[in-house]
């Protein structure tokens, strides 16, 4: 039996559900007669988790693919610009301990190994941090500047950027766009059961007040409950709590002091005794949260840490406690069911990977939507290979931040460096990088998530030294290096003197909007 894929049922709303439904509907013309039917069933009484307020630059191409205007998105989702992350107190915990993981590649990255030259300059007077010396974006962030001007067309950048957004507002915004423009059918009802076909596929889901919702492909966006993939198919969950120790988040929404307070244009992640605090600037408030390991801190201690970070306002704020189970399902696609979002897996939000994984999943499902049931198992196999690889790579990259720390103030940091807790793949990479910088040939899969540049920013930002003493010829092209360092200085001066403050640009977008060209 070769059943055609004519109808996709997305179970669960939230950003994962709406982004997947939207990408499917946009690509497969659900607003036309011949197009794919996309139905989203959402429970009326489950509220969105509302974590995941930081994105990757991929969100720009996602919004473009959905046909969304950047101006509308920024106005309606309380969104602002994000130009990477500032990691404070991760290396030794001192007051001036910080480094950046910006979104712009190191200067001249595709032309030569600037990292080797940067390492050679260390110890000289006036030597700057890696991110400052090779990338102009650090200065843009330190000065609170936006990544573009009001004259830059929408989605175009002067400095590569992503967003900070209000995830609840974004979800509502996507829902409106998907149902009004893209032809997604919205059913608000509780799913009460999953009905199987003889071949083990899901034939339909039962609902409280509507008829059974049949479909050819089911997308599980039911969050942590993982209703279809986890509960129905019993696909095991692969925990990585032996590698990443964070298991709890305490989150607050912090109002600004003034209506016009500056908005940071980067995420700030500050190391604490048993974890770290995220700090994300939206238009009307900051999102702040302490993610920690309950093995190394009591909730009372954690609250104290968060209170100290937030300051006087803390006592008037509502603290939300969110459990974090780090890990992912052993596969994401089983039969005719694929999980996207928290139902597939979750990791601490250190590098804002949650929404990025939703975007990549939604993209791959829509791009490679199997036309019929007989080829669906092939699509499923490839999807599983791709995403298992991605989960592993993200786990490695997050762990990298911990193994390079020199903090000794709490067993949390010391235990994180225990060889037992470090994946073999990361150990191997670290062995290679003892003698050279991470390079593109270390990352040869089409499914890579973090490029070599990101590894360089973390390694050298945290004081790692690659030893080039056995191949000093890597430093022969000194003219190249001097030119690139000078070029970076020039770009830094230009960016700092021409870019507006982040808040100023947001205000202009609200008043005037971007042009499309």
């Amino acid at each position, binding site marked *: 039996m070769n059943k055609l894929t004519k109808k996709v049922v997305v179970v669960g709303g939230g950003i994962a559900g709406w982004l997947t439904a939207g990408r499917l509907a946009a690509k497969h013309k659900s607003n036309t007669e011949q197009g794919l039917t996309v139905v989203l069933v959402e429970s009326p009484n489950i509220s969105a988790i509302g974590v995941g307020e930081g994105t990757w630059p991929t969100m720009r191409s996602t919004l473009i693919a959905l046909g969304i205007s950047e101006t509308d998105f920024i106005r309606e989702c309380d969104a602002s610009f994000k130009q990477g992350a500032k990691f404070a107190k991760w290396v030794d915990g001192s007051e001036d301990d910080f480094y950046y993981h910006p979104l712009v590649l190191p200067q001249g990255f595709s032309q030569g190994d600037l990292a080797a030259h940067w390492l050679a300059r260390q110890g000289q007077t006036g030597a700057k941090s890696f991110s400052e010396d090779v990338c102009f974006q650090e200065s843009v962030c330190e000065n609170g500047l936006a990544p573009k*001007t*009001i*004259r*830059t067309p929408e989605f175009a950048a002067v400095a590569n950027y992503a967003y900070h957004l209000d995830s609840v507002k974004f979800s509502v915004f996507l829902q409106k766009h998907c149902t009004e423009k893209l032809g997604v059918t919205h059913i608000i009802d509780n799913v009460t059961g999953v009905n199987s076909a003889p071949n083990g596929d899901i034939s339909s889901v039962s609902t409280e007040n509507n008829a059974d919702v049949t479909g050819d492909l089911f997308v599980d966006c039911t969050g942590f409950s993982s209703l279809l993939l986890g509960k129905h198919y019993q696909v095991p969950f692969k925990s990585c709590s032996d590698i990443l120790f964070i298991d709890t988040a305490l989150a607050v929404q912090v109002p600004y002091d003034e209506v016009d307070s500056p908005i940071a244009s980067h995420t700030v992640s500050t190391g604490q005794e048993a974890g770290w605090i995220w700090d994300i600037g939206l238009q009307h408030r900051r999102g702040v949260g302490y993610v920690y390991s309950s093995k190394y801190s009591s909730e009372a201690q954690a609250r104290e840490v968060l209170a100290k970070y937030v300051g006087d306002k803390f006592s008037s704020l509502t603290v939300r406690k969110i459990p974090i189970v780090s890990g992912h399902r052993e596969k994401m696609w089983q039969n005719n069911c694929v999980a996207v979002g928290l139902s597939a897996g979750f990791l601490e939000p250190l590098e804002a990977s949650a929404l990025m994984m939703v975007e990549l999943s939604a993209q791959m499902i829509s791009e490679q939507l199997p036309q019929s049931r007989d080829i669906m198992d092939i699509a499923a196999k490839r999807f599983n290979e791709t995403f298992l690889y991605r989960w592993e790579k993200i786990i490695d990259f997050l762990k990298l931040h911990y193994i390079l720390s020199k903090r000794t103030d709490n067993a949390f940091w010391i235990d994180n460096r225990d060889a037992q807790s470090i994946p073999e793949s990361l150990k191997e990479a670290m062995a290679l990088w003892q003698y050279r910088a991470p390079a593109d040939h270390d990352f040869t899969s089409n499914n890579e998530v973090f490029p070599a540049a990101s590894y360089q920013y973390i390694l050298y930002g945290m004081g790692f030294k690659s030893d080039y003493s056995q191949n000093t010829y890597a430093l022969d092209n000194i003219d190249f290096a001097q030119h690139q360092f000078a070029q970076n200085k020039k770009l830094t001066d230009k960016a700092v003197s021409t870019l507006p403050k982040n808040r100023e640009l947001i205000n*202009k977008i609200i*008043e*005037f*909007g*971007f*042009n*499309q*060209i």
Partner: protein
Amino acid sequence: MASLVAVDNKKHLNTKVDLNKVERHGANLALIPVVLAEFIHLAVQYPIVLTKNGDTGQFVFSAMLGFEENENLFWQQAQWQGLYVPLQIRRQPFFVEMSDEKHHNELAVCLNTDSPAVSEETGQALFDEKGDESSYFKSVKANLTQLLLGEKENKVLIATLTSMALIKPMSIDITFINQSATKLAGLYTIDEVKLATLNNEQILSLHQSGLLSAIHTMIISLGQIHTLIDLKNKSLS
């Protein structure tokens, strides 16, 4: 910053404006904002382009007078050498400003007292000895009114061009007679390919709203880039 003062027939009874000096306000402008009503006059000598306002990012129509910042190739021997002087220059040294709260719908005419054209000695008086407006001042007010109305028409045209996606960035590389080269950036014009693909209904609506001829005037005016290159080459040789 210019110091703007509301015009008043007591304070400015003896104020005069030297018309020979008014055009100096445009001496160092490479781009001058223009309104739709003057397109036809401008197209005879100047390229009419779109640029983005630095503060708002919104499109504005401009006549192009030079290739570099502060370069007006039509300003030669301390005089404007063009056949037509844009309204934005001719209205100098006057401005309109929304007046205070209680007369919030009224527009006040203001004078830039720092202008080199303003004195009590030489030029056209604003008022006669009885304090009545001179014919010169009346013509100034007519110019200002035309500019204000023009801005509204500009907005309609820009909204139409934007909604039909008829604007495209202009990219021109020019090499002058002395082999120096320039790359024009930040300028936009009509996308003729897109214009040619509009359907009958869209063309008819452009025609009926009177915007189609303005669009064509803009396209034709681009030929005046050669006039500018010629002027530039003359200044270099």
